């Protein structure tokens, strides 16, 4: 009853839903969706049949005033029982065949010659992204080429004092999720058809900031992707003057610590730690902190001032930086394009 109404609204719904599983944008997601839709309509048909029957029975056999005769006492009917055992079994068997076909089909590894390999390391609560062949490391925003299967190697790894927990990697428009279980290395294939930004997030409860472990899959045309890779593979810019220069110095050492203890920057001597995200081309990203905050000076200031206020449980400490120090660091970080 209500679901019928809901269904109507559902199809009529034009509101944009960037994480919708119902609008597949790649072959993997499409194959999953193609399996779901017929089953959904079969389920809807059964739903309408059963609920309609309930309504019919409720109207037709309701007690009416003056009818006091006790109804005929029917105890059962073997034929009917068989009928409603066999029909659902046949329907389910019909669903099972393509399902199992798709399970095996989707578990196939894409051809190593054409695919792009990307390693994803899940942390609490961000994603480290590594392009092993291209020797590029970034975080949370995963750039991929269109029209080419991307073969993800997923792991949840121990780094620093961090004990790994289970995460789940998921970009709905490109395909279903894959749990990332510590101690196991698993794989997942996604492919995007059109350039664009596809949102995703961690789908397995992983602690206090689980909701803040988001990600973006940014698909480029193959040419744009190559250009992006080239820029990413280059060494970071070293500022030589102004506020950014001051920030560069602070990055290496400020009263009470050093950013280099956790963060790597390709091109900066001694900045090779992989506890926090690699910041080599930080300034070119759209978001940071698990893809939850837009990369703007305001947001970055808020983060450097007190990371845990932006993201509960954030591993980055509040160093009690002064406003001047924060300004300088913001300038430096944004210069890392």
């Amino acid at each position, binding site marked *: 009853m209500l679901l019928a109404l809901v269904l109507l609204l559902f199809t009529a719904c034009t509101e944009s839903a*960037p994480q919708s599983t119902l609008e597949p944008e790649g072959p993997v997601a499409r194959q999953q969706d193609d399996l779901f839709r017929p089953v959904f309509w079969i389920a809807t048909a059964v739903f309408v049949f059963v609920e309609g029957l309930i309504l019919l029975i409720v109207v037709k056999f309701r007690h009416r005033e003056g009818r006091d005769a006790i109804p005929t006492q029917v105890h059962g009917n073997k034929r009917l029982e068989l009928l409603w055992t066999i029909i659902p079994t046949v329907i389910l068997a019909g669903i099972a065949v393509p399902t199992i076909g798709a399970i095996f089909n989707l578990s196939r590894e894409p051809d190593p010659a054409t695919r792009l390999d990307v390693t994803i390391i899940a942390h609490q609560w961000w994603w480290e992204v590594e392009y092993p062949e291209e020797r590029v490391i970034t975080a949370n925003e995963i750039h991929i080429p269109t029209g080419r299967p991307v073969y993800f190697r997923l792991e949840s790894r121990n780094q620093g004092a961090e004990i790994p927990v289970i995460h789940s990697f998921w970009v709905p428009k490109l395909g279903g999720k894959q749990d990332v279980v510590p101690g196991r290395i698993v794989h997942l294939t996604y492919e995007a058809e059109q350039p664009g930004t596809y949102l995703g997030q961690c789908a397995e409860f992983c602690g206090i900031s689980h909701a803040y472990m988001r990600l973006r899959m940014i698909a480029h045309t193959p040419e744009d992707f190559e250009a992006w890779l080239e820029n990413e593979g280059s060494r970071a810019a070293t500022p030589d003057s102004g506020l950014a220069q001051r920030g560069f110095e602070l990055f290496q050492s400020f009263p009470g610590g050093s950013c280099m203890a956790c963060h790597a920057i390709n091109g900066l001597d001694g900045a090779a730690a992989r506890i926090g995200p690699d910041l080599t081309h930080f300034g070119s990203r759209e978001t940071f902190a698990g893809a939850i905050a837009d990369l703007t000076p305001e947001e970055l200031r808020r983060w450097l001032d007190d990371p845990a206020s932006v993201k509960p449980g954030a591993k980055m400490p509040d160093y009690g930086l002064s406003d001047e120090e924060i300004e300088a660091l913001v300038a430096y970080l944004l210069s890392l394009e």
Partner: protein
Amino acid sequence: MATEVLPQRRGWTLHRPTATTGVWSWITTVDHKRIGILYGVTAFVMFLAGGVEALLLRVQLATPENNFISAETYNQLFTMHGTTMIFLVIMPLSAAFFNYFLPLQIGARDVAFPRLNAFSYWVFLAGGIFMYTSFFLGGAPNGGWFGYAPLNTEGGVLDVVRTHNMDFWVLGLIILGIASTVSAVNLLVTIINMRAPGMTFMRMPVFTWMTFVVQFLLVFALPIITVALFELLFDRLFGTNFFNVLNGGDPVLWQHLFWLFGHPEVYILILPAMGIVSEILPVFSRKPLFGYAVVVFSGIAIGFMGWGVWAHHMFAVGLGPVANSAFALSTMFIAVPTGVKIFNWLATMWGGDLRFKTPMLFAIGFVAMFTIGGLSGVTHAIVPHDTQQTDTYYIVAHFHYVLFGGAIFGLFGGAYFWWPKITGKLLNERIGKANFWLMFLGFNLTFAPFHILGLEGMARRTHTYPEGMGWDFWNMVSTVGAFLIAVSVAVFMWNVMRTRTKGEVAGDDPWDGRSLEWSISSPPPAHNFDEIPEVHEVDDFWHKKYAEDEHGRLAPAVAGGAGYGPSEAHAGGHGDGEHGGHEAIHMPSPSYYPAFTAIGFPLLAWGLIFSPALIVIGAAILLGGLYGWALEPSAE
């Protein structure tokens, strides 16, 4: 049961208590009916607690990027909401009906082990209280009702001071598991060994049958979660390696053990409600249950098949295509016996003379809503797309349709149905109907949108969500619906209050019932049956009232009408000993020991967390209680 072997009493053991009214009579009672009421009241209070938790969650999620509660509070509340509703509400609410009506339906005077029965209740209560003290002792459990490792061993918090939140969860569940296991063995023995003459298995009411299946599931499923919980506990307390990846442990083992318990648990939650609905529909259709044997066997089939589907909770783990295919098949085909039940219920109503009293409304609501939950369940079995659904609100929608639209509707139906038997007074019909329709509307408003939210990619267990995801509208609708459910529950409470003073006196058989509990007075006497009834067929009491010719037509039975032997003829004689039969009925005496012994468990658990001294005290109480119990004379 030879009870007269040891009349003398040891000097130092407690006298058997004698209070028949007041608080002590409740604390020391071993009467299955009173214990049933205790279960029911406690579970309802927990239902309110779990409901308040749910409302807080819904307020937080009403708007995007809301700061009504913190992430940490949110995690505690959703963990406690799930744990409470499953272990402290649906299971004990079902237990309330098991306790009260199982002996009545099989024509027994009590359960097999009355003191153990009381013990089960007190241990359950102790476990619930223990878990809820966490709110005042450093924070409630915050790792999810599924308690995945290694998040809940030491995972992720090694550099932080270890918190006790999940210790409360693990220890609390172990205590509750002990309570349920003891109770399950007790009820199993009761059904196997204490049926009235002629009450063969295939003459038992369907509620009793479903109870029977559930006790088997409990007996076999609980030890598995117990082992898993001990492994998690040892990892937390003693630094063992069960789920420690570095030392060779495998987090997936937890998932296998948890869901190997967890899926039978789903049927533990739903089968009692299916049993209740199978009682209500025939009574208010004035027709026997269609296909009694088929309904019973499909219940058994569900019980068996429930053991072979657990990995469908783990389709995103990466178990490989062969395992995934096998579990996809088993998950699809468990829908068959479930569907068979639904069609049998519909056929029961077909051709009936339907009277829409409140219990009937809830029962029909159950069938309608459970169907939705069943259908979305089938969509989970298409593994490739389940990887899209799992851990989203689509799943949350599914299991709320099963556990709220299913179990809770069934249990509310049972409450309205059996209230007159328990209290002697009928709950008000008009308020009852308002209760049903508010709950029905609120329920659908709350949970139907979850289907959409889930398919639009909203992940579960997230304390907030950003703007612009297309989720704002349906989240707000859901929050409004949640408050409507709260109103419906308030209406129920008002109905209960009102009935205490103004309720209509029910009489023995207000609904023209079919099973034995309707053949005795409301409320039933302490000994249930003046004379143990003799049973000749399914729905025996109905057939005492109505004779059926070979065409299935009924006529009121000849001479004497309803009733079993003297209970009808001597209706005035209850309790005052006029009737000769009463003197001979020995009911078990109340006892202090079950409640006393139960106190030992939470003390042990607090001790494990905070102080060895408490362990010693708890163990002493436990052992002392058991010894006193064993040596307690059986009657005085």
